[in-house]
């Protein structure tokens, strides 16, 4: 079994000009990249220096200056002592809850989306097109308008405010974009493979588990990254649907950042935000190359 040609091609690396020695064009190229990088890094720089300052220093107002006195207190406070109402455990309190929500939600949404994308690409049944069309339109509806009706539906089934409730919710909202990605990916796979498997007498499920899943690694990585980012950063669904015992980390982040009265501790806010974003950031750093490969294969073909 070979990789689809398009995927194999990506593995070869860049396709542009071969590097020449430092020509003016090349200097210009690097200048562009470095300036762009500075533009992208500027807010992160401000966040990091702010998180390392004390509040009196922040009030003086030079947001770009290095801290006069470096202090890690804000980080400690953000992680372990900042208060959410009466509970003062920082954002670490919700960390495991977020993990508990993330993993099953990711598995469930990716499984259902890949299955749907696969069935839509290879098995023509009545109603499938309508299903796909509604899914794509659904992607454009603002999330907020789903909340009231979903609460009523969950209530009638008796799962409201539980872990399964939030997992189902993330699956529901991941479905449109992920299905689109998987469907495009599977459509790019060579038909011959599928035909051969059919001739060998394999059924829908066998082909899916034995043939498709192993070939889906690049797009699974993309789906995984999108879901890690989306689910990990979600506040609204977590707080409405997960129930008090399962509040994700973003609830603490919100409480630290969005308090309306009383002093705003900007240094703690910045530290808490960076800490909360660490999980998706690590995933990005670790899988940058795979991300591009996967997107090549999934989003681009179709």
């Amino acid at each position, binding site marked *: 079994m070979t990789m689809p040609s398009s995927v194999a091609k990506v593995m070869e690396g860049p396709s542009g000009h071969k590097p020449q020695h430092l020509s003016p064009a090349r200097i210009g190229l690097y200048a562009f990249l470095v300036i762009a990088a500075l533009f992208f890094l500027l807010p992160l720089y401000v966040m990091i220096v702010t998180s390392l300052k004390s509040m009196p220093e922040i*009030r003086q107002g030079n947001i770009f200056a290095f801290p006069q006195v470096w*202090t*890690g*207190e804000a*980080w*400690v*406070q953000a992680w*372990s*002592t900042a*208060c*959410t*109402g*009466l*509970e*003062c*455990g*920082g954002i670490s309190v919700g960390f495991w809850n977020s993990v508990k929500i993330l993993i099953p939600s990711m598995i469930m949404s990716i499984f259902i989306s890949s299955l749907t994308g696969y069935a839509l690409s290879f098995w023509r049944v009545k109603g499938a097109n309508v299903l796909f069309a509604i899914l794509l339109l659904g992607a454009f509806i603002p999330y907020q308008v789903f*909340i*009231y009706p979903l*609460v*009523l539906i*969950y*209530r009638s089934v008796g799962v*409201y*405010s539980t872990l399964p409730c939030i997992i189902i919710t993330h699956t529901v909202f991941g479905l449109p974009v992920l299905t689109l990605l998987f469907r495009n990916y599977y459509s790019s796979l060579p038909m011959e493979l599928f035909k051969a498997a059919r001739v060998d007498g394999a059924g829908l499920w066998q082909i899916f588990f034995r043939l498709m899943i192993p070939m889906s690694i690049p797009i699974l990585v993309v789906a995984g990254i999108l879901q890690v980012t989306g689910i990990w950063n979600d506040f609204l669904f977590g*707080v*409405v649907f997960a*129930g*008090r015992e399962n509040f994700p980390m973003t*609830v603490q982040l*919100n*409480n*630290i*950042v*969005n*308090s*309306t*009265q*009383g*002093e*705003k501790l900007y240094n703690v806010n910045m530290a808490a935000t960076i800490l909360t974003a660490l999980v998706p950031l690590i995933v990005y750093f670790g899988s940058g190359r795979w991300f591009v490969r996967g997107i090549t294969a999934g989003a681009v073909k179709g």
Partner: protein
Amino acid sequence: MRGLLMALVGATALIALGVTGAQAEGKRAEVLHWWTSGGEAAAVRELANTFNAAGGQWVDTAIAGSGSTARPIGINRIIGGNPPTAMQFNTGTQMNDLAQQGLLRPLDDLAKEQDWKSVLTPAFYNAIQFQGHIYGAPINDHGQNWLFYSKPVFAKAGVTEEPKTWDEMFAALDKIKAAGLIPVAVGGQPWQLQLMFNAILLGEGGKELYAKVWKDLDTDAVKSDKFKHVAEVFAKLRNYQDPGSPNRDWNVATGMLIDGKAGIQFMGDWAKGEFIHANMVADKDFGCILGPGESNFMMGGDIFVFPVLKDKAATDAQTLLATVIMSKEGQLAFNSKKGSVPVRLDVDNSKLDACAQKGLTALKDQSRQILAPDVLTPQDIVQTEQDLVAQYWTTPSMTADQFAEQFAKVIEQAK
């Protein structure tokens, strides 16, 4: 090293919390609220301690982001059949729809038994009712129309007297401007602009006009010359702000007074928390005015409502919690940390600061009290007007006539 110490303190706090949680096997009440900042949380802790001491077990659910984040979450939980035992609301019309649909527990018996009517200001006693039934237990009273000023800035600019009228105030602002300082610290977020507008409406327009506008939703009053005059005073303040004002947080604006960069700020009494943080003393380092113009007190505040629950134990916990909230001890414990004043008139307030004393003097005189717009009028109208006030502020080409015209139109449409 200090970091480690902080972590240790945090850990012991957690352990302490766990222990108290395990010990208290009292009446369990899950309370949903949006008090999450330092001072607010300290106030909640006082209330929780009072409740626990009375045989309850406080389970805290805090969600920050003003009521507009936490309230829908609580409402969704009530609709979803998993309500908290008690929930914070702002005093006023916010609870009406829930009460109408029979989702809130009426507290009439309790109120009669404990004689809430005689201990509450009449305005507040009315504000916790809907269609003749009591649904809320009020906890605090926030003065919303304060004008804070920096005494050093006034001194530097040569303003010796506290301005009593808007003419005097503008003269003072001109002096501050001439001294090279920022006259007004404006936080250009719509809610702050509206707070400022309402303060001027109540001071310069007077209590009568204010009541016609916000209580009676009288469009003739809105189109009156006096209202337009208020609008002009408000608009004139545009010339006294600095270019950094749009979308500035209110506490940053307060910080400008603390740092001696700006002269005055319109804000509710929660701003005192910032002054106190900076070790400033009321009436010594900073001043507070109800006015200029008529010196009235605009009252807003927070209440707790109690969703209808089937479980007898939970209902008992609700009764206990409502009793604690309305007790003298509960009121005093909470408000001493919150910066607001108790809603009970018979509480010993002598320990509160100089500004709170000014407020209390106003509160003793019923003719000087009036409720805040969000207590008197549905959210929908108040907030649509808020958009308009913000638009007026940032659109110098809009005249006071046009502003009044549109203000009236919003009321007509929403009615």
